[in-house]
């Protein structure tokens, strides 16, 4: 990989903070952590294209901004379209001698699950089809958090949200979480990866790889949200770890179609350990928890078959 930054451990991460404090993200919002890492990997020569969402409104409430790199927000559904325009403009302006072509400026589209799974999907798919050299980072907190915790295509099965309450008749979100990263793999782009803020070195390596490929890349990061998932802010990382340990979330990457699971789980826990820590799953019946477990078991089986090896092991409870 040309120009790929090598991250082996925490000591390889640059100390400099390119994301200033003073923003309005909730206390314990792991999106802040994701952005800090993202900018450490991409560096100063980065242009961020942010879709409407928690990050956008919390980090750029006029007249204050937490960004020390060029940053643009246009609307909710068009981060990928705006990023496409920027990527092309960089090419043309360099060719015509208006900007210095020796410096490689990275273009990163940053959007939540709202602006990616649903309203932003068309622009994303178009950008990928056209093959722009843009890294798309999806910070997935599994609902439209910014507007007050409404369900999105990324909300998991049976999760409470304000538009999918767990009531007597309707039991949370009734549909499965849309397999967005799988859909992106089907677009046949150079690099697709899933990541988890609780595993930052793995995530940083994926950011580095995504920025180094010739063409679009897509990094899907699980972002535990204390306000929307209903847990004490100190447990954001712990819950992220439990997502991996229960295989509710699997960290993998597909480089030129070559699929690999990057965080193996030799012995996995029952999903109960993950669900009971979060208020958004409160009140679920035993059979609903087992239903969630069943789908996780099926996905684990599918992944293991895909890899050809038991990378996600059997349940211990």
């Amino acid at each position, binding site marked *: 990989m040309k120009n790929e930054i090598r991250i082996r451990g925490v000591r390889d991460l640059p100390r400099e903070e390119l994301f200033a404090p003073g923003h309005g993200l909730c206390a314990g919002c792991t999106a802040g952590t994701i952005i800090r890492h993202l900018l450490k990997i991409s560096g*100063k*020569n*980065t*242009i961020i*294209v942010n879709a409407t969402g928690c990050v*956008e*409104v919390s980090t*750029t*409430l*006029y*007249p204050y*901004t937490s*960004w*020390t*790199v*060029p*940053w*643009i*927000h*246009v*609307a909710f*559904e*068009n981060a*990928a*379209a*705006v*990023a*496409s*325009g*920027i990527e*092309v*403009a*960089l*090419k*043309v*302006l360099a*060719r*015509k001698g*208006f*900007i210095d072509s020796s*410096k490689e*400026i990275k273009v990163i589209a940053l959007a939540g699950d709202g602006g990616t799974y649903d309203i932003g999907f*068309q*622009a994303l*798919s*178009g950008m990928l*089809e*056209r093959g722009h050299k843009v890294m798309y980072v999806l910070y997935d907190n599994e609902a439209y958090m910014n507007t007050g915790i409404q369900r999105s295509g990324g909300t998991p099965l049976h999760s409470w949200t304000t538009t999918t309450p767990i009531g007597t008749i309707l039991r949370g979100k009734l549909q499965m979480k849309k397999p967005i990263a799988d859909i992106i793999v089907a677009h046949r782009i150079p690099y697709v990866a899933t990541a988890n803020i609780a595993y930052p070195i793995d995530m940083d390596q994926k950011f580095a790889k995504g920025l180094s490929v010739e063409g679009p890349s897509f990094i899907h990061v699980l972002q535990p949200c204390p306000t929307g998932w209903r847990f004490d802010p100190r447990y954001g990382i712990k819950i992220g770890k439990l997502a991996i340990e229960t295989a509710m979330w699997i960290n993998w990457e597909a480089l030129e179609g070559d699929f690999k699971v990057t965080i193996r789980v030799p012995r996995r826990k029952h999903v109960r350990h993950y669900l009971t820590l979060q208020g958004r799953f409160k009140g679920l019946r035993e059979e609903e928890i087992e239903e969630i477990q069943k789908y996780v078991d099926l996905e684990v089986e599918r992944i293991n078959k895909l890899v050809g090896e038991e990378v996600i092991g059997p349940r211990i409870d």
Partner: protein
Amino acid sequence: MEVLESPIKQVRIMLNSNYAVAYAVRDVDVDVIAAYPITPQTGVVEKLAEMLANGELDAEMIHVESEHSALSAIIGASALGARVFTATSSQGLELMHEVLHIASGMRLPLVMSVATRAVSAPINIWCDYSDLMNVRDSSWITFIASTAQEVYDTIIEAYMVAEDPRVLLPVIVAYDGFWMSHMYEPLYIAEDRSHVKALTPRRDRIKLDPLKPITMGTLVGPDWYFELKYQQVTAMKEAYEVIRDYDRVIGKAFGRFYEPIETYEIDDAEIAILTYGGIYGSLLEAVDKLRAEGYKVGAIRLRLWRPFPLNDLLRVTKGISKLLVVDRAISYGASIAGPTALEVIAALYRADSGLDVVSYVAGIGGRPVTEADFQNMFKLALKLGRRARELGTLYWGVRGVSYEE
């Protein structure tokens, strides 16, 4: 080949208005084009694609997957300092609606051509100005051209106006879908386009740059939003003088001097008819015919729609007693349904003018408006007299609609 001797040497060529747009966009050395095809705009993008494919134009075209993305993509490119372009009509313009406001709110010098077309439903691909009128509050400077020549000249002027530091607002150049977009006319284009490029030098403005990182497109609360919008109000107002400056630049360079409002046979006119776009040609014919019958009538053409040329309107209507305004769009439910008529009446109100205005709506959905139509609208207005004002807006040529007792 006929060559026009003017400061910029020009050659005579046959083009339709769509292609005239493409040639002008080529001549100003655009950087990034993003567009989605929609009838009747398609010729613009197809011609540009042909120019790119043959190396005639050094730019990139992003084949976006919708008009919303087209405008979004060129916003991104423009934010980086690139010279950009898009084109659309009707439903495409409607689809990009939220982004129109964003583009002007972000103060980006985008240029867009609109081959005007009726808005659905019912779906209708033919010409009227409902798409253009629908976006009048989006803070885009708007020109309405009446000839392919004017389309070419005005696209070039659009970049000068948009990119001027006193303005930094996006610009629309509109013309009739099909009637102009697909109709070939003779026009003069620059023989050597490097002359046009020299006429439209790049200007410095605040943009995305890692050496000077800025944050664009922020969330602004009730405490600051109004001030930022007021900046747009004044930019729009000041744009009038900037437009007049560049009208003179275009005039000196190409030999064609445009005015925000143009007239024909107005000096001794008692009654005038105002309209815009391609049907102005038919209006000129109608004025000649009416004059031959003894009527003292003149024609007025609206070229600049936004900012509305208030003083020009007052000046040209000074001597007349009655003004017919023929619109090609409907503002449903309004006291006066012709959008331009409404605008004209507001302007006259500001000047405390007692001029009698008759609002006509014609040519909806691509229905032709001929000299005979103008002549008959004129005679009907005379016949109705005061009643025309009471009726509000007269809808011309609708089956079953008649205003005569």
